[in-house]
């Protein structure tokens, strides 16, 4: 681009920096908005976008160099130095598209990142640092992510243990409306899964633990009801999904207990999810009709499978990203080559040449070859200097798809002819200004 502006990216992510550095750089909400405004206020920065999640902080600058983006990180912490990666132009565009399409995520294909990029764009728009270029870029990135999601199977399967648990429960019970989830023990992963199951529509979450205080605390945290440990058997008769994660060294749910519980349940299905190591649920429980028992290895195996399958799909996704990056660049170039610009320059050069010739025909005899050339050069220089500003503006407007400015320019300079589009052009605009460029006698 002649205007010298392009997209620059400086960032760090889970791939380049340890969490100790990432958390020093990460910022959210109002803090981010202020940082954006400060960034955009610096010279050489046209537009800016900052994506900040727990796994990455990336600063995109549409401007003259990536120094400003570097500065953004180094001003936050000097430790960032050495963990930063830098991209410019098409590589920066590709990077954003890959991030939005979840190809650069820790868990490839995870769905949250697109929302986070959208949020980043929303913040940039609110801070008024997202101009036409960044808007266009982001929309393309969203479209790319959508294409990747719908045309590949990259988002298929469950990417984490609690997601696998949710999927399993869904396949057994459908939705969980009217069903109860029982949390046995106070493990962290168990609480996570219980929350995920509540999102699936579980009406009641019961929590039980050997220590009543911890049961109460956990129940309060996830919005459940604490029940005494002694009632475990009757709780099992009540709950449909049981998540077990106690620190007990033996089976808390034995095959005998499960059989007893199934009698009390009159055969209604029950699903045990055993997240504890060593295991708390006897795997033999799964042999009983309508009892489904899974341990952490079962769930972890699915996660591993999913990751392998996603890695394969990622190859197809990369091709989509590449095509979109190309299309984005081409679109931008096509817009830059707006005919009005060419026409403006052609007219001006025509005038310059004509004026130089006229002058030379009057006084050319008194000048030597060098003098003649300086006159021609002067005319050319005046044209160039005069058109430099408008050219830069028009290119910028063209690159960002602004059609008003080219239209106005066409009208102003009287070059609004066949191939140029100027929505505001009046019919007489073709003929009227034509007389103007004629030199005065």
């Amino acid at each position, binding site marked *: 681009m002649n205007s010298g502006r392009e997209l620059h990216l400086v960032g760090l992510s889970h791939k380049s920096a340890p969490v100790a550095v990432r958390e020093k750089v990460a910022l959210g909400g109002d803090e981010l908005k202020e940082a954006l405004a400060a960034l955009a206020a610096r010279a050489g920065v046209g537009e800016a976008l900052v994506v900040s999640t727990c796994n990455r902080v990336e600063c995109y600058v549409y401007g003259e160099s990536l120094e400003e983006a570097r500065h953004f990180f180094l001003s936050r912490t000097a430790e960032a130095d050495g963990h930063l990666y830098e991209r410019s132009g098409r590589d920066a565009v590709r990077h954003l598209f890959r991030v939005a399409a979840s190809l650069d995520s820790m868990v490839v294909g995870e769905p949250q990142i697109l929302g986070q990029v959208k949020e980043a764009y929303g913040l940039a728009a609110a801070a008024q640092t997202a101009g036409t270029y960044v808007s266009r870029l982001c929309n393309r990135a969203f479209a790319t992510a959508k294409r990747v999601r*719908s045309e590949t*199977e990259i988002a*298929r*399967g469950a990417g984490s243990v609690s997601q696998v648990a949710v*999927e*399993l429960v*869904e*396949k*057994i*019970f*459908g939705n969980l409306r009217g069903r109860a989830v029982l949390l046995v023990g106070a493990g962290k992963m168990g609480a996570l899964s219980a929350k995920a199951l509540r999102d699936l529509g579980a009406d009641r979450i019961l929590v039980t633990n050997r220590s009543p205080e911890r049961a109460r605390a956990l129940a309060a945290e996830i919005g459940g009801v604490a029940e005494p440990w002694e009632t475990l058997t009757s709780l099992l008769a009540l709950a449909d999904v049981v998540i077990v994660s106690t620190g007990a060294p033996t089976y808390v749910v034995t095959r005998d207990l499960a059989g007893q519980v199934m009698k009390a349940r*009159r*055969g*209604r*299905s029950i699903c045990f999810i055993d997240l504890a190591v060593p295991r708390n649920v006897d795997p033999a429980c*799964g042999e009983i*009709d*309508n009892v*489904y028992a*899974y341990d952490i290895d*079962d769930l972890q*195996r*699915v996660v591993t*499978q999913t990751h392998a399958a996603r890695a394969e799909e990622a190859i197809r996704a990369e091709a989509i990203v590449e095509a979109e990056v190309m299309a984005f660049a081409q679109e931008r170039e096509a817009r830059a080559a707006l005919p009005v610009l060419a026409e403006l320059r052609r007219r001006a050069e025509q005038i310059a040449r004509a004026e130089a010739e006229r002058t030379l025909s009057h006084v050319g005899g008194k000048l030597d070859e060098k003098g003649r050339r300086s006159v021609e050069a002067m005319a050319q220089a005046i044209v160039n200097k005069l058109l430099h500003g408008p050219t830069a503006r028009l290119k910028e407007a063209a690159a960002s798809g602004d059609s008003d400015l080219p239209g106005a320019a066409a009208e102003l300079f009287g070059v609004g002819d066949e191939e140029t589009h100027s929505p505001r052009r009046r019919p007489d605009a073709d003929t009227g200004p034509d007389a103007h460029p004629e030199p005065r006698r």
Partner: protein
Amino acid sequence: MSLLVLRIAALFYAGAAAAYVLYFARPRHAALATVGQWLLTAAWVVHAAAIGLGCREYGGAEFFGLRGGLVFMVWLGAGASLVVQRLYRIPSIGAFITPLVLVVLLPTLFLVKPDFPEVLPEEVRRPMLTVHIVTALLGVALFAIASLVAVMYLLQEREVKGKRFGALFSRLPSLAALDQLNQRLVRSGFVVYTVALLTGSGMAKVVWKSAWQWDPQQVSSLVIWLLYAAMVQLRHTGWHGRRFAFLTITGFALVLGSMVTLNVLPAGFTRHGGDFSGVRK
């Protein structure tokens, strides 16, 4: 003429089956399921036209033959599956039902030799007979769909219990949904079949002057009815899931078995299937 229209209907069924199976293979293309549904609806309408034309051609006597019975049963089954699709929105069921519909319909497209009496005796031309035929065939169609759903249940249960989580796991609906659908199909099939049994014995009384004759058809129908009655009852005492699915499949196997044996047995041994020798005496 009716045969030509029936063949056109079969083409639509084939299209619907293809769309549903493709959908099952590639669930990302949800449009395929919609296409399948529309094709199935179209097939059903054309099929209805074929049956109507057939009635004009054969005066309704065709339903006393195996071929006419099958044609009509397939139509009822396809209609029932359309209703199920409307109510439950489980398009993957289509991938199981439509191919079966097509397979059952296929022989009727080429078996054109009439296998039914040319004229129906006056005595049996009663509304009760129409009700009997419709309910008997609809009952069997519902039992057939129920057994397919039970097969789906067992397949999915194998995935879920066996911790396989493969292609079938993601494509088949949840166990709860399949179990519930199975139960409802068995229950409604049972109600319809009960009506068929009652009207059947009503007709027996008209034709043979006695409602019960130890006729093989009657005996097997009663056994089937008892089995399904037991299933409906067992459901209340906690029988569901795997065991219920096996029962459903057993029940339908019995239905199929009795249909085949009764048609293979020499004519005159059974008085069902349009053999009204008893009437003519």
